[in-house]
């Protein structure tokens, strides 16, 4: 039994290296083993992401065959961004605990519109509308189709591959969302004012990237002192 568990751990480690390689190919995250992981207290990176041109909320596909005005729906918040380390420090991929997140379907909108998670996270997709939804993704990183299910029900997906996952509803073509799956925990989603904070970063030098609705910034170099906080702002056009 003990041997089996140990073997399992080895498999997890081997898999985490494969995930890292995949993530590097996807351009989402890379692991640079040449970078030393610093000893001592962890630091943090914080700052603000300014978006020069906010994409408008995606509109319904116009259809002439409907009899009347489509029902009201919530507008999508496309202001939120993700800031992440391009190259994670050694040891960042050793965590094995599974996390859980929720992406609701409310008033023909995915809430939140942007979710950032680590690999292995299970995301629940509850249907909060009084009609069917059909959540699916054809993204290479995680392809799934949850089928049609009614109000009050939920279905879940475990995201095992790092990458960018675009989520849609088959019935309501204007519904879309992003799930960014990282193989390390060094990322943060900005708040309503564009502020972010990545905590628990081992001291060292890193490249940091900001991402919003498919647009990624150029990597910015930053040095994180042990126990200190580094300010880093981004501007996305």
């Amino acid at each position, binding site marked *: 039994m003990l041997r089996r568990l140990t073997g399992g751990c080895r498999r997890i480690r081997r898999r985490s290296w494969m995930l890292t390689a995949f993530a590097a190919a996807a351009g989402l995250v890379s692991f640079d083993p040449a970078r030393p992981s610093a000893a001592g207290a962890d630091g943090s990176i914080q700052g603000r992401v300014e978006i020069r041109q906010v*994409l*408008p*909320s*995606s*509109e*319904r*596909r*116009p*259809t*002439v*065959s*409907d*009899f*009347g*005005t489509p*029902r009201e729906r919530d507008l999508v918040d496309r202001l939120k961004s993700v800031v992440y380390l391009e190259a994670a420090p050694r040891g960042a991929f050793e965590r094995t605990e599974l996390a859980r997140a929720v992406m609701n379907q409310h008033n023909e909108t995915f809430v939140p519109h942007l979710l950032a998670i680590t690999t292995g996270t299970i995301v629940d997709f509850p249907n909060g509308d*009084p*009609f*069917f939804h059909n959540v*699916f*993704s*054809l993204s290479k990183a995680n*392809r*799934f*189709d949850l*089928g*049609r*299910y*009614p*109000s009050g029900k939920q279905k879940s997906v475990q995201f095992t591959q790092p990458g*960018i996952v*675009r989520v*849609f509803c088959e019935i309501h073509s*204007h519904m*879309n969302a992003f799930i960014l799956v990282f193989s390390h925990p060094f990322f943060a989603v900005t708040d309503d004012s564009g502020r972010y904070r990545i905590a628990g970063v081992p001291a060292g030098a890193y490249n940091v990237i900001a991402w919003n*609705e*498919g*647009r990624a910034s150029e990597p910015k170099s930053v040095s994180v002192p042990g126990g200190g906080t580094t300010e880093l702002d981004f501007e996305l056009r």
Partner: protein
Amino acid sequence: MLFRVAAIATTALAVLALASLRADAQSMTSETISFANGRVTLGGDVSATFSCTDSEISTSSVCADDTGFFNYTDYEHSALRMVRIDLIAAVRATERLSFLVEVRTEDGDRLQPYALYARIRPWLSKPIDVQVGRVPPTFGAFTRSTYASDNLLIGYPLAYQYLMSIRSDALPANADELLRMRGRGWLSTFSVGNTLPDRGLPLANAFRWDTGVQVHAVGRMVEATAALTTGSLGNPLVHDDNPGKQIATRVVVRPLPGLVLGASGAVAPFVSRAAAESAGAAASMSGLTQSALGIDAEYSRGYYLIRMETIMSDWRVPLVHTPAIDLPLRARTFLIEGRYKIRPGLYAAARFDHVGFSEVAGTARTAEWEAPVNRVELGGGYSILRNLMVKGSYQRDTRPAGRTQKLNAIATQVVFWF
């Protein structure tokens, strides 16, 4: 031919250029294009369909065409061999007023306005809309699934596409003349009215929309629609060719999540003034009607989707000579179709479709006034991207009359929408 290919290519490139306006962000091409704070939205649906049949009378040595005209939407265009480009625009002028337009080209023909109407919401707090212009068909369920991206298979249901011999501008003088045209709806000829050969009418036309006023109201579980338009179910028109109007209604009930039940009705004079006058029936023109009743149901859950629709339509034509035509001329259609998603992006679908007709007694025989048709279509689709799909299907048509009585066709279709 070369000009037509160039026209198709140019239009397709224009559509792709429109679709890529927002391609600056990853995967954005699948989003609707919008301007002016979302007041103007543009969408599109492009499909290219190719098919081969086993027809024995075709002259083509490579890939035979549909010589039975089972899938022709008129004499020129087959639903199984077509490049179709639709561009749709919605303009929200005010909170109460929107304009919707769709232009369409088939096989590089000039752009045709498929839909063009104003949508008015008189009371903002009440879900009641009035649509005026070339409006969507009130009757039936399938008319809201005619885009290639919505159609589970490649072919269209017989009720909405198959051409019968009956025409609005030409009338059979007697039952013998009508029986002679069985299975020849792609190019039928009668001796009263317009005597030139032309295509017949489908039971309900999914490719041309009617013109008039439509009112739609939505409740918690029930939707109701009523319309007053110029043409008839099988022959929608912009300019009326007779003094009568069509009245059509539709009620939809959603008793459970995933279950949609619908009932439709329509009645309209369908014979043109010129044809009625030729038949000596100008005085009774308002009685020369097409009237139809339809019932439909849809249920979906998980990875399944099942639809069923049945329509009964009656036509009343003037009795000119003996042997007299037994009235009303009746057609009954039934279709059942289903889809199952096998894995993300991949589904299988099937449709069984039948259209049958009432009997008329001629001099030498009594037979159904049109040849009944059975169609089975099996196929599926695979989504390469969310808005780029490849479909394939096998279709078998059978009927006991006409130039081609059996047809096996395989078809493939590429669909892109935004």
